[in-house]
């Protein structure tokens, strides 16, 4: 079996702890800035359709994807920009897809909720809540059959806990010891409803019922997410079966960009608490500085560089041409 250490494509094993955590910081900042630009594009009516922002949840995608090989698989959700970037997608082609341009990852046919990229193992974001649980489990099934050592990460929100197909595939994954990690990002809200109103029992109890390895973590702590994910991923890669990871986190924005008046389902005080006290980027910055891995000037420099990259990507996408309408019926069939 191939291991991460023997895969020259990764090279992450050789990086120092300091480099690893600085990269995690940069990745989270890139996602935050990406989503700020999405908000801007949407608000300026440059972006068609719907936009579901990942801001606030960056430590989950980054902590997990930093534990993966490039050829490992992920499936993502309607709130998927963070997963996509963390797995290695390029912001320019992502923005192009968000704007429906030919240069986009899906040639403009997928949009924000369907970005897919075989080069980074991204099987696709999915606009059906829980819609990709079968795909992720199937990818793990194929990995096991083909003995290619790949692991599949199935990202979903706590809203997907209401979908029966999740439990069908979790049962199968545990029975067949498939290399899949079910990552439940509990951002507290199923769209506009607090999860406590929709979720009986406990979240972890669902996985434990199948005899599945299950862990709950603070999803705002990128180092904790990464360490646990790395253990579960290597465990799955070694053939020891699936796992369930509950990451408690928070969605800073509304369900979608237009969800402005949120007082009927959550308070401003609650939002402020998470943004001021529990921000994953700030928490990690504090730690990097305390450890002596960086000073605030170095972190600011990284942010400026990321901003330049993201703004350049937006410019690229805005200037990029739309697909020719002649392409509308291409790729219906392979």
């Amino acid at each position, binding site marked *: 079996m191939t291991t991460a250490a023997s895969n020259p494509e990764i090279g992450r094993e050789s990086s120092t702890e300091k480099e690893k955590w600085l990269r995690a910081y940069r990745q989270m900042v890139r996602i935050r800035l990406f989503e700020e630009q999405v908000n801007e594009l949407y608000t300026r009516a440059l972006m068609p359709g719907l936009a579901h922002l990942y801001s606030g949840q960056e430590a989950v995608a980054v902590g997990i994807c930093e534990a993966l090989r490039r050829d490992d*698989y992920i*499936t993502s959700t309607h709130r998927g920009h963070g997963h996509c970037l963390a797995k290695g997608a390029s912001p320019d082609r992502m923005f192009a897809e968000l704007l429906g341009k030919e240069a*986009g*990852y*899906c*040639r*403009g*046919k*997928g949009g924000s909720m*369907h970005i*897919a*990229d*075989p080069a980074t193992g991204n*099987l*696709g974001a*999915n606009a*059906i809540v829980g*819609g*990709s*649980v*079968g*795909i*992720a*489990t*199937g*990818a*793990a*099934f*194929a*990995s096991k*059959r*083909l003995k*290619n050592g*790949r692991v*599949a990460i199935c990202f979903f929100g706590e809203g997907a806990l209401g979908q*029966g*197909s999740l439990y*069908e*595939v979790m*049962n*199968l994954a545990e*029975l067949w010891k498939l290399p899949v990690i079910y990552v439940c990002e509990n951002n507290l809200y199923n769209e506009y409803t607090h999860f406590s109103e929709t979720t009986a029992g406990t979240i972890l109890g669902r996985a434990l019922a199948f005899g599945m390895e299950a862990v709950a973590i603070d999803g705002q702590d990128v180092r904790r997410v990464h360490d646990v994910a790395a253990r579960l991923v290597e465990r799955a890669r070694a053939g020891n079966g699936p796992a369930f990871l509950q990451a408690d986190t928070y969605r800073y924005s509304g369900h979608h960009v237009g969800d402005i008046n949120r007082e009927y389902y959550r308070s401003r005080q609650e939002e402020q608490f998470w943004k001021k006290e529990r921000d994953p980027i700030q928490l990690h910055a504090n730690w990097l500085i305390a450890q002596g891995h960086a000073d605030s000037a170095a972190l600011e420099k990284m942010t400026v560089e990321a901003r330049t990259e993201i703004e350049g990507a937006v410019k690229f996408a805005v200037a990029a041409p739309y697909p020719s309408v002649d392409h509308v019926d*291409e*790729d*219906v*069939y*392979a």
Partner: protein
Amino acid sequence: MPETATPERELTFAQAVREALAEELRRDECVCIFGEDVAEAGTPFKVLSGLVEEFGSDRVIDTPISEAGFTGIGVGAAMTGLRPVVDIMFGDFLTLTMDQMVNQAAKAHYMSGGHWKVPMVMRTTLGATRRSAAQHSQSLHAWFSHVPGLKVVLPSTPYDAKGLLKTAVRDDNPVVFFEDKMMYKLKGPVPQEDYTIPFGVADVKRAGSDITLVATSSMVQVALGAAVLLEKEGISAEVVDPRTTWPLDEKTIVDSVKKTSRAIVLDEGYGRYGATAEIAAVIAEGAFYDLDAPVKRMGAMHVPIPFSPPLEDVTVPTDEGVVAAAREMCRK
């Protein structure tokens, strides 16, 4: 048909399906089968008997009773290197797979801009008159024919079953393959050799000049039976079997109707908004000025399939019903 002069061999429809799968499992390591009771049980219809013994339980795999779950696994496995053949025991259970088929399998290629492919076959059954009542008797192929991204196959003979199934396994798209469970014991010639039948090519099962009977799956046998009875009355019926409802061979259907100037469309799905409606529309668009009578549609009656035998029998088109309709249409 192959040119080699092997003696004509007969297989049942079920044996033809099994032979196609066995050959594909032998040909390509990436092919695997999963579903409920597909391994040692060989399905309740015994269509897959013997496959697990030859190919092992890594490739012929029993699943829990979780149609949505294992269909989704089929989609993901197909995207990542395997060629799964997913078994849905009764076509009625397709309802449980609909999100996976309609929103995932059918769209993954298009939504990804052509990057991901889903080379998966879903095998399932259709057909009433088995006294199985409303939840084990439906013919739901029209639903899948409606969705861009899916292909839908309806074999009506052992020969077609083998050739079409091998094409399905080798296709890079999700294919839904419907087998009439009342037809599993039907015998017919099936070459031992490897052969495939392309999708979107109709087969004229019987040539005729007075009326065209376009029929799918189980209704092909009904149409052929009716054609024999009509011949005795001096009416020459041509039987056209599209074999796939998508892609649909519109040309062969329209050409036949242009020749005969009359058409009855037969399909065991519900008549309302069904495959018969689509094919009748194709005929109306392509052969309207050649028609001597309105196109007649005959499908399953618009009721949930009843259990009681005398009730069930009147819900499905019969030879006699087709004869009566054809006689009426051919009377000047």
